[in-house]
């Protein structure tokens, strides 16, 4: 990174009229004072996918069971999860998508990125979710990741455990009244956030 600002004459050459050079010099000073604009990380190059969706509307929904904690791992290629979730698949995981929630990796997992497709309440009164994940490392046998609902930065309800290998789609059921404001992923048994959404 350059520590000294570049020389204006070196930048524009010697054949610039004095008045114009003076004007460019003031812009030059502004650039030096402002400093460089930051680069956007890959997951921020595009705007939020569904900025208008209100996760807060979820609490009004009714849930009857706390049972469905199991997570199913689908080893589909990244992106295929949307097709499976929206158009149906052979594994019984098909559901109609209500909305998508993007997730981004924290400093603990900067290369991780995910998106949750949240479905309409199903016949069993569950709230199905398909989480498409990229960049989370495969855990040793017997260890899992955990998807949480969050509120005010705190983990409040578990949505289930899952494992991932490379680019994966995992299917989960939200087992509680969805009274969170966002989602986060930790290693099961840990509290450090690896992926999270923006709380609404």
């Amino acid at each position, binding site marked *: 990174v350059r520590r000294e600002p570049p020389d204006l004459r070196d930048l*524009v050459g010697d054949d610039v009229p004095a008045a114009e050079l003076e004007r460019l010099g003031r812009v030059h000073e502004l650039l030096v004072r402002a400093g460089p604009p930051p680069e956007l990380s890959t997951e921020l190059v595009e705007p939020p996918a569904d900025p208008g969706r209100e996760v807060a509307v979820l609490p009004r929904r009714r849930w009857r069971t706390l049972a469905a904690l199991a997570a199913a791992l689908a080893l589909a290629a990244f992106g295929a999860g949307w097709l499976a979730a929206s158009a149906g698949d052979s594994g019984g995981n098909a559901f109609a998508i209500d909305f998508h929630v993007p997730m981004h990796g924290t400093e603990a997992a900067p290369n991780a990125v995910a998106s949750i497709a949240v479905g309409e309440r199903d016949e069993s009164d569950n709230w199905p979710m398909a989480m498409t994940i990229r960049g989370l490392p495969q855990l040793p046998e017997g260890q899992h990741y955990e998807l949480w609902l969050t509120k005010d*930065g705190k983990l409040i309800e578990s949505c289930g455990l899952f494992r991932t290998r490379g680019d994966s789609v995992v299917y989960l059921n939200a087992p509680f009244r969805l009274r969170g404001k966002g989602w986060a992923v930790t290693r099961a048994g840990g509290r450090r956030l690896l992926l999270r959404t923006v709380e609404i």
Partner: protein
Amino acid sequence: MPRVSERVSDGDLIQLVGTGDRNAFELLYRRFSRPVLGLALRRLGDRGRAEDALQETFTSVWRSASTYRPERGPGAPWLYAVARNAIVDRGRGRAETPTEPPDDEAVEPGPPEQAEASWLAWRVHRALEELPERERTVLELAYWSGLSQSEVATFLNIPLGTVKTRTRSALARLADLLEEELQ
């Protein structure tokens, strides 16, 4: 759906976003995402929190764009205020007061100076987004990559004279865009 013109003003763009125009939202994001992230990084000093603030800013913009009133002022200051609120919210979770990154000067600037510096950087970064890609590239390489002009020419595989021409053109265009700041 027809694409929103790249020439539409920030204020008009915000009004279109207020009608639920996704294309306008994407264009607004392209114009302001780096200035917002830059502002958040200056205030929060933490990349993760700054990125959260960026997303919160645009979530808020999507929700509240219909409240923007052009007769009260241009779009950029309105969006700056939305961003500042999101950044302040994100900073509240920290024990310490959000601060600017350390300054090399012996005397730390006070809040008014910090605010002025933030606003200046916001305007400059916003103006940079208006430049044609090839001009913005030579400018960013010239000022912040550490490369000499000759090295920029080699890097971009263009003649040195073209680098200087583009740099001069970019600075002139910025001068037009930042006329208010230059007075």
